[in-house]
């Protein structure tokens, strides 16, 4: 049907909301609670109100469905008055705080406040910051209490910035089924947070920090630790960069999503003062070689199947907490980050004659969960934590901006070759299906003993939540599945339990579309943005000269010189790990 928006006709289908049609056609509509990953919208922020010819009052465009003869106006006096007053009401607790805020310049509320030129001091602040936990009892004069939670290893919360948009509640409940947040209390005391104000107890995926419009929920900021290490002349700062961050890094500096920014990323890290910059993709290749060997062993010896990938720490924690009976199914392989971390402080340190005590191992990740993974007690192959600091790409971008470096203007940088050669297979790790495809490339050649004619396994690519396929390798029929988002992982586990599905090998990523949709990636995010990022990954893989993990020359050298063979004793010691039943324990 056709409707009119601001006097121009637009085509649409019945069942669509006014908001979605405006977005599609580039008509500006502000929002603070709607999000492309959280449909249908609820209409709580009231920013998207518009005037229509079919209703006396203002209508929320994010929930109002179109109808025949509808005429919408998005910029009338009343519409703008509504936006202004509601923003002023919200801004009361934010006025004057931007300069010191983590999200200065990248905050959805700040953007709207600037755009609508609101009076910052129309209302006095009403959220009072508590000084201690004992003060939770003292709600002086009905002031809304504020909770600052620093106890989660990956996510920091400060509810004085919360505007109760409820995106975090929804994404944790709907996408990840964990529901660590709730909307609590009533009236002006309404606060989005954890039950009984306990420290956030979750799987650390960070999706909440990716959808939060303000600084209420952010990644745990470790920039200071990094700066301190860089400034310490005694320390050798060795940085590794995840596969997916090179496709999102330049979004923080104005480039379109999916832009291949590896060279600028490395250059920026060198400009900051990193001593060595290595490529986590080498770790990814190691992961593939070890995991393919493990899979083949399990298939041959009738071991525990299906085998699950274990490079996503949120997925691992989810299994440990909610489905510990599936722990034996998890691959014993560490993640690429941890394999690299282990190698850096053992093999590399020894080779270069560095004292591992003086190495500060840093990783740049798309992921808040990796902060937790790096601190796990099992990740100490070198005798101390193998990875010391994990920075999300958002933190790194913040630091780069703080130092007034413009990465786009820098000369291209290159990974240090010692641990810096990458393959197309490892590059694919960034998107959902990538680990599976990389593993299949290696497993197929190892099983058949022959070279693969065509290395692409398009059947495991895509954007649906659960994708299954049967891969024929010689007379082996490998039933594989690729899953992203925990709600789909939960369904997959329940199907396995009930016998509705049978698999041999499953890749699971907690974040939408895999690491390119990670909780630590640049915001905003949306299915379109992630789609563009995935395209970048696929294109880059196609253009690389080496596209199979086991052909990585540095990897081959490491096995020859140090590790021996995949799954061997040395590999077991450094590159494999154990899991713990964490059911009912926070």
């Amino acid at each position, binding site marked *: 049907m056709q409707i009119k928006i601001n006097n121009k006709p637009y085509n649409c289908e019945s069942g669509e909301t006014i908001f979605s049609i405006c977005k599609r056609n580039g008509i500006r509509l502000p929002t603070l609670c709607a999000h492309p990953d959280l449909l249908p919208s609820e209409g709580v*922020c*009231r920013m998207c109100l518009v005037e229509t010819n079919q209703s006396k009052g203002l209508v929320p465009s994010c929930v109002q469905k179109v109808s025949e003869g509808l005429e919408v106006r998005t910029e009338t006096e009343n519409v703008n008055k509504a936006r202004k007053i*509601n923003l002023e009401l919200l801004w009361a607790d934010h006025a004057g705080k931007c300069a010191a805020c983590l999200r200065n310049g990248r905050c959805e509320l700040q953007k709207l406040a600037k755009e609508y030129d609101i009076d910052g001091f129309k*209302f006095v602040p009403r959220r009072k910051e508590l000084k201690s936990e004992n003060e939770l009892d003292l709600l002086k004069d009905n002031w809304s209490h504020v909770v600052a939670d620093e106890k989660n290893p990956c996510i920091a919360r400060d509810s004085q910035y919360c505007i109760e948009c409820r995106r975090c509640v929804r994404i944790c409940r709907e996408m990840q089924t964990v529901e660590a947040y709730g*909307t609590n209390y*009533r009236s002006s005391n309404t606060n989005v947070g954890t039950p009984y104000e306990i420290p956030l107890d979750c799987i650390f995926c960070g999706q909440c920090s990716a959808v939060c419009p303000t600084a209420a929920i952010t990644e745990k900021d470790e920039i200071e630790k990094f700066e301190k290490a860089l400034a310490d002349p005694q320390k050798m700062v060795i940085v590794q960069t995840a596969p997916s961050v090179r496709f999102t890094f330049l979004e923080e500096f104005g480039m379109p999503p999916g832009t291949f920014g590896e060279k600028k990323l490395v250059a920026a890290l060198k400009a900051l003062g990193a001593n060595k910059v290595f490529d986590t993709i080498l770790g990814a290749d190691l992961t593939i070689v070890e995991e393919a060997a493990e899979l083949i062993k399990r298939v041959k010896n009738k071991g525990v199947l299906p085998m699950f990938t274990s490079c996503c720490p949120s997925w691992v924690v989810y299994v440990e907490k909610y489905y510990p009976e599936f722990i034996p199914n998890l691959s014993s392989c560490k993640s690429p980050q941890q394999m690299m971390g282990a190698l850096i402080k053992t093999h590399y340190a020894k080779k270069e004659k560095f004292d591992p005590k003086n190495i500060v191992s840093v990783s740049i990740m798309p992921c808040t969960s990796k902060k937790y993974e790096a601190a796990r007690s099992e990740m100490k192959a070198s005798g101390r934590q193998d990875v010391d600091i994990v920075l999300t790409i958002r933190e790194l971008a913040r630091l780069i901006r703080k130092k007034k470096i413009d990465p786009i203007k820098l000369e291209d940088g290159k990974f240090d070759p010692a641990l810096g050669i990458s393959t197309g297979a490892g590059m694919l790790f960034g998107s959902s299906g990538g680990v599976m495809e990389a593993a299949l490339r290696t497993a197929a050649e190892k099983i058949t003993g022959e070279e693969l004619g065509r290395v692409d396994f398009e059947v495991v690519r895509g954007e649906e939540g659960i994708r299954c396929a049967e891969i024929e390798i010689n007379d082996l029929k490998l039933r594989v599945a690729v899953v992203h988002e925990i709600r789909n992982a939960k369904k997959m586990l329940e199907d396995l339990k009930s016998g509705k599905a049978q698999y041999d090998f499953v890749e699971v990523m907690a974040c939408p579309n895999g690491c390119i949709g990670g909780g630590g990636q640049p915001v905003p995010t949306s299915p379109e943005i992630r789609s563009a990022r995935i395209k970048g990954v696929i294109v880059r893989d196609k253009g690389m000269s080496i596209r199979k993990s086991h052909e990585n020359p540095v990897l081959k050298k490491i096995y020859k010189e140090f590790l021996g063979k995949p799954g061997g004793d040395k590999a077991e010691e450094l590159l494999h790990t154990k899991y713990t039943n964490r059911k009912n324990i926070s």
Partner: protein
Amino acid sequence: MEIVTKNWEKINPLDINTYIRSGGYEALRKVIRETPLKVVSEIKRSGLRGRGGGGFPTGEKWEITAKIEADEKFIICNLDESEPGVYKDRIIAEKNPHQIIEGLLIGAYAIGAKRAFIYINGHYKKPAEILKIALEQAREKEFVGRGIMGSSIDVEIEIFSGAGAYICGEENALINSIEGKRGEPRLKPPHPPVSGLFGKPTIVNNAETLANVPYIIKRGADVYSKIGPSLSPGTKLFLLEGAVKNKGIFEVPLGTTAEDLIFNSLYGGGMEDGKEFWFAQIGGASGRLMPRGKLDQLLIYGPSEYPIGAGSILVVDKMADIKDLLFSWADFFHRESCGKCVPCREGTYRLWEIAKWLKNNDLKERDRENIEDILWTLSNTTFCPLGNFAAVAWSDAISMFSEEIFGK
């Protein structure tokens, strides 16, 4: 004119036989011999409107649900009644619980519901006890449960006690709280008669509305529709409070004027000694302020300059402290806002903050300037009508009594 309060002096709420002797459950007996749609049509023809405040035609609402084919339907008696100045449903439950139960049973049969709830205010402990005993006695007599009065009709009634939240008087918030959710309003459409409790067609009727049903069935829609104005027939329990001589509940035909109710010696009996009439708030805390010159307005449901809401009439005299009243209104809506949408959560807080300063004679010019914006956003941008309600009395007060409030 007595419909709801009829025979109250003869009825012992704890003895069902006194109700039966007064003609109780005859309507139910009549109804189960008719088809459900005939019952619906009778209520429709009677012109009965919701007595909780909305004034929506009851029969039309019942018809929507009656005509839907569904594996399960519900009917809920709304006895949450948390509007300040309104306690009529409590009195009905305490004096004649069976009239509500009978109305509820008839409604359940008419729409095809096998399960009914009585959602009662969490503070109403005594009325809840009385209802519980009444239900037990009704069950013993086979008026409730499986095989009502020997027929093949099953209707189960449960009491559901609220937990203290005014917003749960709104039908969607009420339904949400039964489902174990926060009492927040839902997006409409879909409306409860189509999709309500657990997604099934649900009718929510005020207790007083249901208390009218047995009379309509017994005496017929034609008789009922002729009481009061044709677009808003029947009687209404009005509650007189404030500076009026005779305070309490008065059942009068709709169409009576506020002048009559307040000053007629049969009812309010005029102002308390030495007090001069200033204005009357019609409807509850969300009611408009009716000045002397408008007292001749007919009190009816349907489109009206002064919506009667649940029927509370607060008479205010010239010696009353308007600032205390302004604080009373702002305090109530601030406390009862559910907190879901920005304008109401923040707006009711800011209005309360201003009311506090005003009461303490501490209101700054800049904050006074904010009042208009706050009232505007509450009236125009909220998720549910509670925001509108919060702004009504203040808007009237400021436009009519600005001098008394702000001085100068």
